[in-house]
């Protein structure tokens, strides 16, 4: 029997290929059921006009019971958006990826949520504890217990 995660990801991938991604989101690479990449752009007027970011999803066999490890790619000249909830190493402090994760959420749902998180940004700045955090940050953002102070 295929694991829950591979059947589920196969289904998500099929939907993406059949129906396409929402505007501003594009699948870059999904060759297996362990790591996927998307590009993400904010449509319309926003602080991130004309910027494009790359999102990386890593799945463990417990997906979707456990959340995917999601971060912005910061290698090969790519950068993480300057945002109060995005660290310069690409880690994202978003409750939806932590304690608010729900197994009914999907990869696309996460992309859309992050897209609107960027769209509603009022001021481009790093989290106040950025320097401290990236010095000791674990490789996998899921290992960090973020404190979600607001839900913007």
């Amino acid at each position: 029997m295929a694991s829950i995660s591979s059947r589920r990801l196969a289904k998500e991938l099929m939907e993406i290929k059949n129906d396409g991604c929402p505007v501003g989101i594009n699948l870059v690479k999904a060759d297996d059921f362990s790591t996927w990449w998307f590009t993400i752009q904010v449509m319309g007027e926003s602080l991130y006009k004309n910027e494009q970011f790359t999102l990386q999803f890593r799945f463990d066999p417990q997906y979707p019971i456990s959340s995917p490890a999601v971060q912005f790619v910061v290698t090969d000249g790519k950068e993480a958006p300057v945002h109060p909830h995005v660290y310069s190493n690409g880690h994202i402090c978003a409750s939806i990826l932590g304690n608010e994760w729900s197994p009914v959420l999907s990869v696309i749902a996460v992309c859309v949520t992050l897209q609107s998180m960027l769209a509603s940004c009022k001021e481009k700045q790093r989290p106040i504890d950025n320097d401290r955090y990236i010095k000791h940050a674990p490789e996998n953002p899921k290992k960090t217990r973020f404190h979600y102070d607001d839900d913007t």
Partner: protein
Amino acid sequence: MSSDEEDYYMDSDDDMMDDVQDEDTSDIDMDDDDDDTDFGYDFKVGSGSKHKSYQVDYTSLSQPRVEQTMKEDVDHICGIFGVDAGTASLLLRNESWNKERLIEKYMDNTTKVLVDAGAAQPEFALVRPSTTARRSARSTSKLLSFKKSSNPTSSPEQPERIPSTSFTCPICFDDSPDLKQLALHCGHAACSGCWNAYVISKIRDEGEHCIRCMTEGCALVATDEFIHDLLVGPPGSPAPTAVTPIDPSADVHENAVAFNRFNQLLVRNFVSSNPNLKFCPFPGCTNTVECSLGSGKAVLTSVVPTVKCGARGIPQDTSDLKEGVSGKATFSSALGSSGPSGGGTSIHDKEHVFCFGCPIEGDHRPVVCAVAKMWMKKCEDDSETANWIKSNTKECSQCQSTIEKNGGCNHMTCKKCKYEFCWVCMGPWSEHGTAWYSCNRYDEKGSIDARDAQSRSRASLERYLHYYNRWANHEQSAKLSLDLYLKTEKKMEDLQLTSSLTWIEVQFMRRAVDVLLSCRTTLKWTYAMGYYLARGNEKDLFEDNQRDLEKAVEDLSELLEGPMPTEVDAAAGSGSGEGGGGGGQGGQGSISELRQKVTDKTVYVQKRNEIVLDDTAQGFLDGRWRWNTSIDGFEDPADEIRVD
């Protein structure tokens, strides 16, 4: 949403089966078989006798006993609110088991209380779930609806509203015809496999007992009954004791472990919300201690609430429950425990002794929590400086050959030059028996004379090392004594076979070692106390008592590590002490002689220990102790007696 949803929730008055597991609900028997090895502070439950100055009243509770209390609270709430047990449990958990506050809030705004606790969805909560009379503890199991979607004939009482046509699980997208679907009463269905994986991951990986519906934005929390039925099987399964998870492919063992853990999480939640309860910190242990210390923290400056949970060692059957319970090392493996042997408890199955007032595991009497914590912190900060002290080898101060300590006794004899000395201070042993010599007392003169910063910091380090050295040594000696005893134990049992001595009669060694270990614990902590005690008359008297106990302990230790008689009435013969232990006595006496000596010494050591514990405890109650530094809860010392 619609009324059929409501029916779905309310349709639960059948199924009155109450199969609460028939567990032993009796209290733990505190009457250990070896009461006499304790110092009278093995307080007996319910005896109500007046305890000593260094004891507190407490009760040990087994997990089933705590569960019984929880159930009484749940029943109480069911009775008042007319809700089912699952709902009552959720309400209580959300209100930290404060019944009075819950009742008040519930009367004030029922909807809000139900929604906040995850017992109802906002739109359902308008309907008070009290139209039926009190329900049985099982009634909510109908909240959990499941069916085989392929087999429309299977069970007629299934809720009609779940269409029997194809169901695709929204989590895993499985659409096999024999898929079982489950939902809380919100109706957000998923397959049994997904529910099973989700609930196990919440319990095992996150230690969570409030398990919300899997659907985003739905704040409904799974009831205890839902978890029970999902993991170990709904009531009425073929064999009530067998684990029959709803999900056919679930790992039965994993489910049983997770359900166990879930119950433990509920108990822990209950215990942690009651200041008079504390969960036993020993790995794998599920007992709770109840102790009413009275008004908060202040009492901890005068009392050391040392308690025992009533259990010993590490429960064997929890080896696979340990993961996630605690990352602490287990001591049974360190001592090569093989569990209780031959009817009695084994000496390395330590009793679970801990402090009710602070996180220190073990007995830190006679020193109060604040001082003990400061000392532990100090030791941690200075661990590198002091590491060398823990080494098992030192150089003979006379001939410089390496000497290894292989017992708990501090009376050392150099194998090479026969120099007899004290392991702790390296001074000649001959002086230790004399009245004017005190190995335990630190000569403060050095630090008083020190004028410049450098020599002051040196003096301060020396002072710390004096206390730390003795602290660490008692810990090490206790361990070495136990190691040595374990070797002797076998001999003693052989002796029983070849002589007329009974099993009881050969237990004197074990009793002595038990006493020795406890007294070394007392001594250990007296050095933490001594480090912070301000100089003066009171400290001198304290150190006199400390010295007398230490002397008695070392004498007993030496006696225990001397050569063993090999026969019951062997004539006194030759035989010299081993390198580490046994100088003094030399020859072998008869077993009965040894027994008499050991027993007498043990009684004396117990008496000295009681004096230290009682006098120190009395001093705390009287507010007699003065400190040389600021200690939480105590008056700050005058500048002239500060030692920083």
